[in-house]
């Protein structure tokens, strides 16, 4: 049925549209524009844009199980993230804070699928200032990198996996990745992997707890970041004084849920 101008697509119609376009084999058209519907242009005159039920709130990470990572990868990442952010009385280690769960959910989702990467060819190595030139999505990038790293570790450490070598040796290996000195087989350099990896670990440790890391806001509490506040008017000119209170996330505080 033809709809008049100004008609806005609701979620149900949107799904119908996607299905129709999908079956017509024009899946590409669906994604021509970022975050969009695959439908005709929407038209607004004399009306403010509004979509019932389409508040763009974030999706939280799912609970339970591994969505993308295999056991070997979980072993490698758990060991590696805890060298990047080890446990001590200052605050939790990365894995205690849930960073490996965070990485798993990210790699299983839009980020891992390269939803915000341009991955078309032709591919060619570039200069450092030209940035990422891999054809891999981040999920593929992790899989290839971890496999290649474990091969390199196995060669130098008598067949051991990264997680089974002593902590000081793990640190040395991570430093070699940071500098790119750890030579890997295949197209990915250890430095390129380390750069993405360290960034993603910081993301997991310090992002809102809804994404699976920063469990109970512990990383925020550690550094003194109050979290998802929206109003600091009272403290603007309270120079050199701590802002009181526990951090709060988008979903509130742990205490609110546990009573």
């Amino acid at each position, binding site marked *: 049925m033809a709809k008049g101008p100004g008609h806005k697509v609701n979620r149900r119609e949107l799904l119908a549209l996607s299905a129709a*376009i999908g079956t017509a084999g*024009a899946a*590409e*058209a669906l*994604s*021509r*524009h970022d*975050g969009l519907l695959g*439908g*005709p*242009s*929407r*038209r*607004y*005159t*004399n009306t*403010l*844009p509004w979509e019932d039920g*389409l508040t*763009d*709130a*974030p999706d939280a990470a799912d609970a339970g199980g591994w969505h993308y990572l295999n056991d070997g990868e979980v072993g490698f990442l758990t060991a590696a993230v805890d*060298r*990047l*952010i*080890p446990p001590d009385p*200052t*605050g939790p280690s990365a894995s205690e804070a849930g960073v490996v769960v965070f990485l798993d959910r990210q790699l299983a989702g839009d980020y891992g699928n390269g*939803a*915000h*990467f*341009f*991955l078309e060819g*032709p591919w060619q190595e570039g*200069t450092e*200032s*030209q*940035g990422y030139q*891999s054809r891999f999505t981040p999920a593929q990038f992790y899989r290839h990198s971890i496999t290649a790293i474990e091969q390199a570790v196995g060669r130098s450490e008598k067949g051991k996996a990264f997680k089974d070598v002593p902590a000081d040796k793990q640190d040395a290996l*991570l430093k070699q990745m940071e500098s790119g000195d750890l030579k890997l087989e295949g197209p990915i350099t250890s430095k390129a992997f380390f750069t993405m990896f*360290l*960034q993603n*670990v910081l*993301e997991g440790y*310090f*992002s809102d707890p809804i*994404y699976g890391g920063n469990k109970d806001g512990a*990383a925020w509490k550690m*550094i*003194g*970041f109050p979290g*998802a506040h*929206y109003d*600091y*008017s009272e*403290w603007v000119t*309270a*120079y*050199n004084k701590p802002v009181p209170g526990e951090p709060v996330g*988008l979903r509130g505080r742990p205490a609110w849920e546990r009573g």
Partner: protein
Amino acid sequence: MAKTMPKVDVVLVGFGWTGAILAQQLCDAGLTVLALERASARTTPLNWATTFDQDELRYMWRHHLFQNVKYSTLTFRNNVSQKALPMRRLGSFLPGTGVGGAGIHWNGQIWRWLETDFKLKSHNEAHYGKQSTAGLTLQDMPLSYKELEPFYDMFDRICGTSGQAGNLKGAKQAGGNPFEGPRSAPYPTPPLPMTYGPKLFEQAAASMGLHPFPHPAGNLSQAYTNPLGMQLGKCTFCGFCEKFGCGNYSKASPQTTLIPYILTKPNFELRTEAEVLKIERTPDGRHATGVTYIDAAGAEYFQPAEIVALTAYQLHNVHLMLVSGIGQPYDPATGKGVVGKNYCYQTMSSVDVFFDDKLLNPFIGAGALASVIDDYNGDNFDHSGLGFIGGAYIAGMITVARPIEMVRVPDGVPKWGLEWKRAGTKYYLRNMAISVHGSSYSQAGNYLSLDPTYKDQFGRPMLRMTFDFPDNDLKMAKYCTDRAAEIAKNMGASHVRPKARQGPYDITHYQTTHNVGGTMMGASPADSVVNKYSQSWDVPNLFVTGAGLYPQNPGYNPTGTLAALAFLTADAIKTRYVKALGAPLVTA
């Protein structure tokens, strides 16, 4: 076959800051206006409400409001001897997509150029000799500060800009910027209060005989109703400002200052999910007939219009000019051609400042919350014997302390491990950065063109960027960063880390979204793409807005000036062009 739509007076290509300004002005003048925006409509309650806006991962690192390079990117190289490769991930700049454009996630730092910035080439050559501009391809603007001032003022009143004037109609005002050109009126709202870090900067700078003043801000210090009746709220210093939308209606944006008003106009239509692919012309090429656009289902349309205005972001305006074959593309080998010429950026440096004994609470911030000095910007200081021209504003600025990005540690501390964790924890609340916001001057080898290899999703050649920092600008960056470090030392810091910008330009790290040039305005078709009314020399019913109009970039954020130029363009269209359709407003 593209379906032909009913004709309108004006079609706008893109609906961000400049699109909204033209829409408001031209609708009020009675013209029928259609805005085509490539992505979707976005509003405060649906897209960045205070209940979920404070999300560093999603908005900043997952680029939720930014252009997605999967659908729209460019290729990049540092110089002509390299092969340009695609920007496969956003980094150095973060253009917007969707209604409001980058005007949603901008900071709200609202600047005017210095009077001398309008005649940069002639001014410097008169003061420092012809050799001072050698190696650069600088050009004067075809208009003066004085001509643009009423339109700067209009933008301030639309935004409700918070600040302290330094020069009111020629009379210097205490506490403001003593170097600024005369303002016809004070800022509409008083300056923001300073948090501790900016306060320390202000005190240090003043003690050194410099002239600190509150950074002009589109984050409002108090509630404000603009001349269109749009109401803005008081900023609450949430710190999720730069790279985020404002859930409070406190940040001036197209959505808070213009769009709700425009949408009440019966002679206005907004069409979203409508990406313009090409400007169409009559067979002689002298007249634009309209534009071709594509919707999100892949259907193409021809939209006829009497006037076409390119109000997409600078990079997209240049791309559309090139793929539509309008104007002569610039060729660095011969120096001929103008479209894509004088691409410039912003030369950003900074100084990290760490304190052992001061709690800054840097998470309390706003996009433009800073104390700033202009003593080392433009030609506000004597350049004799310095070996460069240009300068930077230096700002003790705390806009935010996003923890993923801003757990900073002093030199000598590793980037990870136990030592990093302890130092990061110690200094998170005790550090800030001084921003050194430097000019970017044009040189022959920096330009935009069409890529010979890579195609976009519509089969058009991608835009290719060739850019590196000129020596002049790197020298400027070093000099100004040294000045900033002196201030830092006077703030009582325990560690000071100057980070003067160095080459080569790197497209992976965020610097600014201040891409300029490529459709520059000038006095003649030989050296510019448009005249001082932003009207194309080749196609008189085509107007181009945005930072592409700049022949080089002064040491300021671009939006104040490009917004003022958009108001001036609208004024020229409604008072002069509509009376002489198809005629050039300046004779070549």
